[in-house]
């Protein structure tokens, strides 16, 4: 190592510092807090979870749990096993939920961004400031509040519908409406983020492209179709993918609204709105089935990890250019 203070002076002596191939060990010093934190708080619990997934660690076997191999994973997919009737319907709903909620939030955000990005609309900043509020309110507070608003007997949403002559809806008690409510509440809470992202992207599209297109005789619609949409898509995609992964495990949006309910008649572990993350949480805290919860967690990890990897390859967003 160079004896010069901070090492970079040594780099300087060798001329052009940024073309140098030698590795810089100081880098590890800068990264050490993050590496330490991630190892102890992310990687170690994951490894321990993997271990638990291959055991029968649960309330019954709390002190004498043992290695059971891949038995938990077989149970997830075996039609004759009770775990399968929990896992498969919940897996399907988790996918429906994550896809619908991400797409709805994205297109609502994009629509608003396009409407607000109108240079004749002088007051657009005011609208944006108002529309951003649901994002600014911590989701824990707003979703719990929605639980109150959607209450069947007392909730103000049903009272409002009553004014329009619509009979009360059992928002949190019927499987269909509970799922509908989850998606709508998450739309309310999630569209401002997408709107902000899309507005930023719209404004990042270079103005010259539009000018040259209009010189070439492109219509408003054509520049929208061939410039705005592809450019915005290109810029926002790296943010849409994490958003999908986030919603896939968006515990708060589901659990704080419905508690996973209404319950399924076939099993006590996962209700109609439970996503895999909230089902795993209930198995841990309510039923002490650490082995099942860990196995489901591993499956979740594999699914989300795979989607993310494929999409990162596709968008090349996280790739290093060397």
């Amino acid at each position: 190592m160079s004896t010069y203070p901070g090492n970079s002076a040594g780099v300087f002596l060798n001329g052009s510092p940024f073309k140098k191939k030698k590795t810089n060990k100081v880098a590890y010093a800068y990264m050490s807090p993050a590496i330490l934190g991630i190892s102890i708080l992310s990687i170690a619990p994951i490894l321990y979870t993997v271990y638990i997934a291959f055991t029968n660690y649960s309330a019954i076997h709390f002190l004498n749990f043992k290695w059971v191999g891949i038995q938990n994973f077989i149970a997830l997919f075996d039609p004759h096993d009770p775990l399968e009737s929990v896992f498969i319907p919940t897996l399907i709903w988790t996918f429906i939920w994550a896809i619908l909620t991400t797409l709805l939030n994205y297109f609502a955000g994009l629509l608003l961004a396009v409407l607000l990005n109108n240079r004749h609309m002088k007051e657009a900043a005011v609208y944006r400031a108002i529309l951003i509020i649901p994002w600014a309110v911590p989701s824990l507070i707003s979703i719990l509040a929605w639980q109150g608003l959607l209450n069947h007997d007392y909730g103000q949403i049903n009272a409002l519908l009553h004014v329009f002559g619509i009979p009360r809806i059992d928002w949190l008690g019927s499987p269909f409406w509970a799922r509908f409510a989850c998606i709508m509440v998450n739309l309310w809470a999630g569209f401002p983020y997408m709107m902000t992202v899309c507005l930023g992207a719209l404004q990042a599209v270079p103005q010259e492209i539009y000018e040259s297109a209009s010189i070439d005789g492109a219509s408003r619609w054509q520049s929208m179709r061939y410039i705005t949409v592809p450019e915005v898509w290109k810029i926002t995609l790296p943010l849409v993918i994490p958003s999908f992964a986030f919603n896939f495990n968006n515990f708060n949006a589901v659990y704080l609204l419905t508690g996973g309910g209404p319950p399924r008649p076939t099993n006590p572990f996962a209700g109609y709105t439970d996503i895999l993350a909230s089902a795993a949480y209930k198995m841990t805290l309510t039923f002490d089935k650490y082995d099942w919860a860990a196995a489901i967690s591993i499956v979740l990890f594999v699914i989300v990890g795979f989607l993310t990897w494929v999409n990162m390859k596709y968008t090349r967003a996280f790739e290093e250019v060397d």
Partner: protein
Amino acid sequence: MSTNAGQVTLPFDDLNAKQLKMRKMTSNERVMLWVSRIVVWFIILLTIIPMWFVAEASFNPTNSYFSLSIIPSHPSFYNYSYLFHHTQFMLWVRNSLIVGLGIGFGQVLITAGSAFAFSRMRFWGRKYGLMTLIILQMFPNFLALPAIYIGLSKLNAINDLWSYMLVLLGGSAFNIWLLKRYFDTVPKELDEAALMDGANSWQRFTRIILPLSLPMLVVIFIFTLMGAFGEYILAGTILQTPGNYTLGLGMYGLISGQYAKNWGEFAAAALLSAIPLTVIFGLLQRFIARGLVAGSVKG
């Protein structure tokens, strides 16, 4: 369509062009503008109504909230006074602030160091290290709940605000990636100039990169702070006595405990805690929008 693109522009022509840009809208554009406005107004109405209902409930002392009213008939501060005198609301706020500010600053420091290394240095693991970590962290840490719980129990660190902060503080690979992209947009020439003047890496980091990246640092700080206010699963597992409750835990107790009875107090607490956060967020929103996009545009 403008056709004078190739012509030599005289100052006078330029003036004309400016006038053209400021011309009155065509009737087509006017219709578009008003249609846009009406759609936006409608969406704003849908966005605001639920918030208004919550605000209304907080000033409504009767708690009979099926009666739909735009303004409560006998508005009072009863719910607020109840909140301050009969619950530990101030304690919850204090705990949440300690946790939120603590991990906000901590996260920025941890993230900035790593992002600097990834942006400006060469080392083994640079190419795939970050991507691997990002994929690993798609695994939300609350799914490892039994692992975390058993680990903390063995260390006798359950029901401790500090161990809760520590669990939340672990570095975020996604933040490192966002910040690294932002650092990449700071011109390398500035570093080179500093190198010429004999600056070491720490000086370049603290005097050049950090000040120029303030917007993104603010974004990460605010996101972390908001995350702390919204976190409840780990809080519920680790913090077990009401004296250690964070705002979220306390409010969850208010609404899920004796439900209909506490709706008014819950609404008051929601308003009191949401308003400061919302205002801070609104003031910083410009930074956030810029930071997010700057992070994703490839340089």
